[in-house]
């Protein structure tokens, strides 16, 4: 069972790549505080929470940035033109509500406007909108009015999303990528009992624009072992054959073998599997041909780092309605706890 109140705070706080200070950073610091010895924020904004030990130095990373939009132009009639920060699909903007972040803790609403089908040609209705066509309507009638409302070039926009339960075991929210992993990291810190590992829990910044926070925080920490926690694709939906589903909801945590950014260390992969088997933690495999994770940056730090990763399977990622299964979240926390409790036994 997830701690719904904590999860809600973590997923609903704003923090687009490079703008994690708008909200999520403070939530994360507050959440880690009871379970670690020291917390610091570095020059890129990474939150580095240190639980001291005299065993191997381990870095665990989950990225706290989310994809979003940036205002690039304000039209003279008050509409906002936007560009994506991270991999936003313009089709996911139409008919959505947005929060336009005027300042920390201060937003106005906007909507993703579109041309009504009634006045479109039949052939145009079949076309997906692209970035030249989409715009955000904040109710302003002029550029001046939009500026009076506090909108500037560079203003950050997120979907207006929230956490809800879906069925018996499932949850839907904005930004499960990768806040469900940030939550997993906090829960791991909370449940950890016996370990001598020197642990750095890192809520990284700017993963969605190139694994940038993980790169600098790994340099500073210089870990012996690195683990990334991220979401992976669960395409267990109608129309997708089983061999293309990657993972399935409710089938456990996904131990990463590889993605576009990393080939996880085979010994670590096997060892994680043994731990999952020993403690009867449900698991599945994660082999992703598109997309990367912080593990990609961590394993290349300095002279190289022994790196593994787990993923929480998620449907509909990079949308305002990402879906995860809380049993997979629980399994992910359990496996990470066991990894940390046994890491001193690992011989490579």
């Amino acid at each position, binding site marked *: 069972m997830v701690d719904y109140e904590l999860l809600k705070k973590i997923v609903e706080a704003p923090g687009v790549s*490079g703008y994690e*200070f708008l909200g999520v950073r403070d939530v994360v610091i507050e959440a880690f505080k009871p379970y670690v010895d020291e917390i610091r924020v*570095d*020059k890129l904004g990474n939150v580095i929470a240190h639980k001291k030990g005299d065993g191997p130095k381990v870095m665990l990373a989950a990225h706290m940035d989310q994809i979003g939009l940036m205002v*690039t132009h304000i039209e003279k009639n008050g509409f906002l033109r936007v*560009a994506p*920060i991270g991999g936003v699909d313009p089709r996911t903007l139409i008919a959505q509500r947005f929060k336009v972040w005027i300042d920390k803790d201060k937003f106005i609403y906007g909507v993703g406007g579109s041309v009504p089908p009634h006045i479109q040609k039949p052939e145009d209705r079949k076309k997906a909108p692209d970035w030249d066509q989409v715009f955000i309507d904040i109710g302003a009638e002029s550029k001046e009015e939009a500026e009076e409302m506090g909108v500037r070039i560079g203003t950050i926009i997120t979907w207006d999303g929230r956490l809800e339960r879906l069925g018996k075991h499932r949850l839907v929210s904005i930004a499960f990528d990768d806040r469900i992993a940030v939550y997993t990291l906090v829960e791991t810190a909370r449940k950890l009992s016996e370990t001598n590992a020197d642990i750095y829990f890192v809520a990284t910044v700017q993963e969605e624009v190139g694994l*940038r926070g993980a790169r*600098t925080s790994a*340099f500073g920490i210089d870990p012996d072992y690195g683990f990334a926690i991220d979401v992976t694709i669960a395409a267990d939906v109608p129309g997708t054959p089983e061999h293309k589903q990657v993972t399935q909801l409710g089938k456990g945590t996904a131990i990463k073998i590889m993605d576009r950014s990393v080939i996880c260390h085979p010994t670590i992969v096997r060892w994680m599997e043994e731990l999952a088997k020993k403690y009867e933690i449900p698991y599945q495999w994660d082999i992703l041909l598109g997309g990367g994770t912080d593990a990609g940056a961590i394993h290349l730090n300095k002279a190289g780092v022994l790196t593994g990763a787990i993923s929480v399977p998620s449907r509909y990622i990079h949308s305002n309605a990402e879906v995860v299964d809380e049993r997979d979240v629980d399994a992910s926390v359990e496996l990470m706890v066991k990894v940390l409790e046994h890491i001193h036994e690992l011989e490579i």
Partner: protein
Amino acid sequence: MVDFELLRKVVEAPGVSGYEFLGIRDVVIEALKDHVDEIKIDKLGNVIAHKKGDKPRIMIAAHMDKIGLMVNHIDKNGYLHVVPIGGVDPRTLVAQRVRIFTEKGELYGVVGHIPPHLTKPEERKKAVDWDTIVVDVGADSKEEAEKMGIKVGTVMEFAPAFTRLTENRFASPYLDDRICLYAMIEAARNLENHEADIYFVASVQEEVGLRGARVASYAIDPEIGIAMDVTFAKQPGDKGKIVVELGKGPVMDVGPNINPKVRAFAEEVAKKYDIPLQVEPSPRPTGTDANIMQINREGVATAVLSIPIKYMHSQVELADARDVDNTIKLAKYLLEELKPMDLVP
């Protein structure tokens, strides 16, 4: 005021990416050496000029490399076949002169074109590509070209063509990034009292992947990094996507690549000295040295200071001297005013 004589010297000095030693490196050293405490060249060829101070440690970089061409084949008729170094658009090469650097000295070549009389109407509508670009150096055979000093690996640039259009506007190849390099040099030369420990870097190999700035920032380990690079100004055909305008002042980006505190500080400095400042949205890591500087070691608080130009990566890059002047001022005052500050975003 812009010193057009020095500007032109900086813009025209040779230095394709990786071949900065052909000219620009000495120009930079000569222009800076009497104005800094220490100057050195690192193993990649970066010029690192140190103006000693206390805190914060800042690296300010303008890249000194240029896009250009490299010979990859000399055919039996003496024509040179070339590949691009950096982002050269082959369409800009047709009917242009190029300046070639051989061990025997400099020479010129031209890129020919097929007369419209000999082409079919539909062929005339197609853009040229690398397969059809050849450089004619006046040789009739491979042997003759080789005697002139040309080899596989010989590099070349767009021929100099500095043109004053009006009192303030001028066009030239290679304002990217020599216009910013010039501005950085002037800021260093005019620098007065400062608390910051300042490293001026004329970086190499930016156009082939931000390579010089990568190693220079590792060596310097700065707290703050500022890249000075050109950016796009509004021009015909931009589809309304460009917000920055020529003549309206220097430009500073906002976005994930930019530390908001450094950006806000620069804005205050601009206000204090009455310098116009434009904003450019950068939702992705920028295509400047600030991109690689930001992820150096444990992370660097980065910003980008830009001079807007039209027609980027062509032989007629066009800038406004007032923007250059204001950029020099902003760089100088920013460096002078900088004090130790909290850099957490």
